[in-house]
């Protein structure tokens, strides 16, 4: 199967999970974030024959940081199944229509070529990139919750990198290392600050 044929489902998964990552709470949000980051990284690096070191580095950084940032007991199986029921996820999206509309609008806007010289541009990558930017930017600028802001930062940055990849391709080695570190740092600092604020305000 051509790797390009996977772009449509990956773009849809990235947009949907990005929307859930900024609207859901606790388990669903973290699982959605991991799903979004994985789909976005696969779209960005387009692994064909072998996995590139940059892709492995990105996934390791995000998975590692998410595991560290997850509150204890969040991966309990029964609770996980309960929180990830499709009915619940749809209800969450229905409660945040602006985000759901942003995701759809982003995917549609991505089909319109930008006014840039982009001969090698991919419509689906661009659509997913614009959708993630539209989903992530408002909560990144306005959210009062630390972990939600960190997740929104990861969604927005993934969107910007997808948009960049749709035109210029994957990042160089230095930039890949720096970006993998960025994702990890955003999640780790978010978790640390959320813990400190909870403790300080609980006193």
């Amino acid at each position: 199967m051509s790797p390009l044929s996977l772009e449509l489902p990956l773009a849809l998964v990235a947009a949907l999970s990005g929307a859930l990552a900024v609207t859901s709470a606790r388990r669903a949000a973290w699982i959605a974030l991991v799903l979004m980051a994985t789909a976005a990284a696969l779209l960005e690096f387009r692994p064909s024959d072998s996995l590139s070191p940059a892709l492995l580095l990105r996934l390791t950084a995000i998975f590692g940081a998410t595991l560290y940032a997850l509150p204890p007991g969040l991966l309990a199986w029964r609770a996980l199944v309960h929180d990830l029921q499709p009915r619940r996820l749809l209800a969450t999206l229905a409660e945040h229509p602006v985000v759901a509309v942003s995701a759809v609008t982003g995917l549609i806007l991505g089909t319109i070529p930008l006014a840039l010289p982009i001969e090698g541009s991919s419509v689906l990558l661009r659509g997913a990139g614009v959708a993630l930017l539209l989903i992530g930017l408002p909560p990144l600028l306005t959210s009062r919750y630390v972990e939600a802001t960190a997740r929104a930062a990861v969604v927005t940055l993934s969107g910007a990198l997808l948009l960049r990849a749709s035109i210029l391709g994957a990042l160089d080695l230095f930039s890949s290392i720096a970006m993998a570190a960025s994702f990890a740092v955003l999640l780790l600092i978010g978790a640390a600050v959320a813990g400190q604020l909870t403790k300080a305000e609980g006193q």
Partner: protein
Amino acid sequence: MSEAETLQMLSALRAFSPLLFALLSLPVIPLVRSNRFGSRSDAHVRGGSAAVLLLLASSVAALLAGSGYASTLSVGLITVDPSEPGRLLVTLGGAVFALIVTVGQGRRAGAMGQVALFGLAIIDISLAIPIGLAPIVILLVGSASLSALAAGNKEDAQRARAVFRDLRTVGVLLTVIVVAELLRSAIPLSATDPAYATTSSLTAGVAMTLSLVLLGMIGAFPFHHRLVRIFESLPIVGSLMVGVWIPAALSLIILNELSLLSSSVSEPIGGAVVTTLFFTGIVTLLFGGFSALLHDDVGEVLGFLAVGNAGWLTLGAAATLLHPSAVGPLLVALPGALVISLFGLWRISIRRHYELTSLQELSGWARRTQAIGVVLICAAAAQTAVPVREFFSGGFSIADDGGSPFITVGALFGAGSLAAAAIRLFLVGLAQESRDVHRTHAGKILSPAAIWLMAGAILISGVAGGFINIEAAASGLLRPDAVESVPQNSTP
């Protein structure tokens, strides 16, 4: 080991010397704090002393390693080529932070030394790799990490919120810098089809997005809030590193990118970018100066003085876009960082002596602690000298190049208000002693600690104000040999 491998090992040691000292601090500081080296009650003193020694060693090693060909490491596609400004920032920063950690002491002196060591290593690495996305991302992410490290595990809501604000800023700026790189990469291709964006519009877009990253990171108006909260709530070493030194390195990279951008196009950069930067610079200068005059908390006053410094950097960005070959705007970053560091030295000296943060409660301090007064006089003198040297008589003349009398008058008023804010701090010290100050034991001006403090402050202000031309001397020491040198990056 073959001769080639030995040479490569030596190059790696020279290229990564600040990072190696930072990594060395990870086992050394906990080790010297352990009971094996003395009592538990003195652990923080031993940790602080080890951090000071490592900072000084890092500073000397950066000076000796230099930025020449022998310090360039090439492994496969990876090239790390230390730059002159990077090495100069580490050399001076190591000495400045060693002095601040020595004066500050405290239970977290070792940890603060580590924050300074890692901050300087991040600055050195970011200025050693080729221009592009990576160096700016390293500085942004390093800044957020260091502010979290400086805040520590203390359950202090104000500190946690300052780090949260930093996290949000870095999250936004990372996205903006990716967009800037996207637009910049499209410029060479813009002539291929008239249906695409024009070269002029793309250049203006890149200049605007890069300037936005610069303004957000240095804390220019209206993005000043983050900077003020950092100075108000984080320890002074963390505040200076995150609020002044890392932004100084970032401004060197961005001003250089703006210079390359502006010189690569024949038409002037449009979109009112230059005008907006001039206006923002003047407003930031005035806002920083007048706010520093009106606030009472020492941390906030220092934060607003740093905002004023951001005003000069913003004017520097505008000047670079107008005159890409001018070096004056580039030279304001390091002296500005040194000036704010002197105010930081004054703050930590005052705080250690009196444990007070309110200026009203601090009245009369200069009558009892003359050595700290010398530090403040040095800071004020350097603050006045920097703009005079760099902007009114140096490589960039605001009066000639600003294009409007409004810009010149605004810059003069801004410089005046910043100087007035520093003089106000000193006048508070000469006022009648407050009860808190009167109760405190007065230090001797001729004690070794006071002499060390005054000598350090005089040297730093001499360098910042240009009275001691260490910049040229250090450039000479660090300049790579013209024949052997193979410049890998174009960072100034």
